[in-house]
Structure formats: C-alpha cells, structure tokens
C-alpha cells in the first residue's frame, strides 16, 4: 500500500513526533507507515484521515491503483 503521509505532514509543518502525538502512537510507528514498511490497521488509517481532515482514499492507495495512475 502507498500513502502520502510524508507530503501531507510536510504541508502542515508537522514533525513525525507531532503527528505521532496527534495519533497517540510512537514516532517509530509514523516512520514505519511513511516509509511503507508497515500498513496501518483500518481504525488507525481512519484516525490518520481524521487528523488530516481528508478522505482515506486521498491518503492511502493500493500499489496497483497508484501504479495505474502514474
């Protein structure tokens, strides 16, 4: 799965620690999600969407969908 977490975070000038605080997870968790090494659960993905005030599909996309769009 791909995500735009890093870009969205940078747009808001948030550090990984800032986002981690908002999501109530560790900074390592945010880093692992950003780098695509860990796919969050559905509840956490919805929480991320709520923090960025965006629909979930504007943050996350399946690899095949992202490749097709490129």
């Amino acid at each position, binding site marked *: 799965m791909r995500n735009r977490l890093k870009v969205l975070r940078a747009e808001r000038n948030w550090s990984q620690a800032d986002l*981690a605080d908002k999501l109530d997870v*560790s*900074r*390592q968790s945010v880093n692992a*999600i950003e780098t695509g090494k860990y796919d969050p659960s559905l509840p956490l993905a919805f929480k991320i969407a709520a923090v960025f005030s965006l629909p979930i599909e504007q943050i996350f996309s399946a690899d095949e969908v992202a490749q097709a769009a490129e």
Partner: protein
Amino acid sequence: MSNCSESAGKPAAARLFRDMFGAGMIYLTAVLGAGLAIKGFAPPQWLAALLAVAPIAPALLMLAAQLRYMRALDEFQRGVQSEAVLIAAAVIAFGTLAYGQLEDMAGFPDLSMMWVFPAFCVVWSAATLFVRLRYK
C-alpha cells in the same frame, strides 16, 4: 527487558523496567530465602517442594508486567514485540532441545532449567532490536 520508543512506548517501557526490577528483586529474595530455609532446616520433602516453587509467585508478577507492557503499546510496536517473542520462543525451544541432546548424547554438563526464563528474556531483547532494524 524489551525496550521501547517515544510517545506511546516510552512511559510503558519505563513502567515495565520499574515493575520488572521490583518483581525481580522480590523473586531473588524469595529464591535466596527458600534456598537458605531448605538448607538450614532440612524440612520434609513436601515442604521443601513448596518452598522451592514459592518464588514462582513473584515471578508471575514479571509476566503480569510484560502483559501490561504489551497492552500499552500501539499496534505497530505490538507487532514488533509479537514477532520478537515468537523469535525468542523459537530460539529457546530449539536451543534447549539441541542442548538436551548434547547432554544426553555428547556428555555435555547438565544445566539447570532455571536458566531458561532468563535466557528467554535476553533473547527477547536481542530479537526486539533485530526486528526493529527491519523497520529503520
């Protein structure tokens, strides 16, 4: 024992260390006390057996501390710890099996099973570091 990270994990790790240290001290005191009582008073076997297993009660406090720690972690950290526990369990299971065969077949010295739990804790910590490297 297993370390953790910032945010959700740091207070949990600090509490784990505190709880494990406290329970470990009680456990060591109980082991020493039971050992001294058994040697000093030469109680009947049923009482010696009771004294010998009595330190397991404080050892269970360590298990409770570990469970509390796991529940306090976020989903990613819990995944890391679960994988580390699985690796540690496999290493200890196959390690003890292999050493048992060395004892039986190759004349290696007998080791007390008391070392299994401390060895598990050490391997768990090492496995945690190893698993974390994959997510760096």
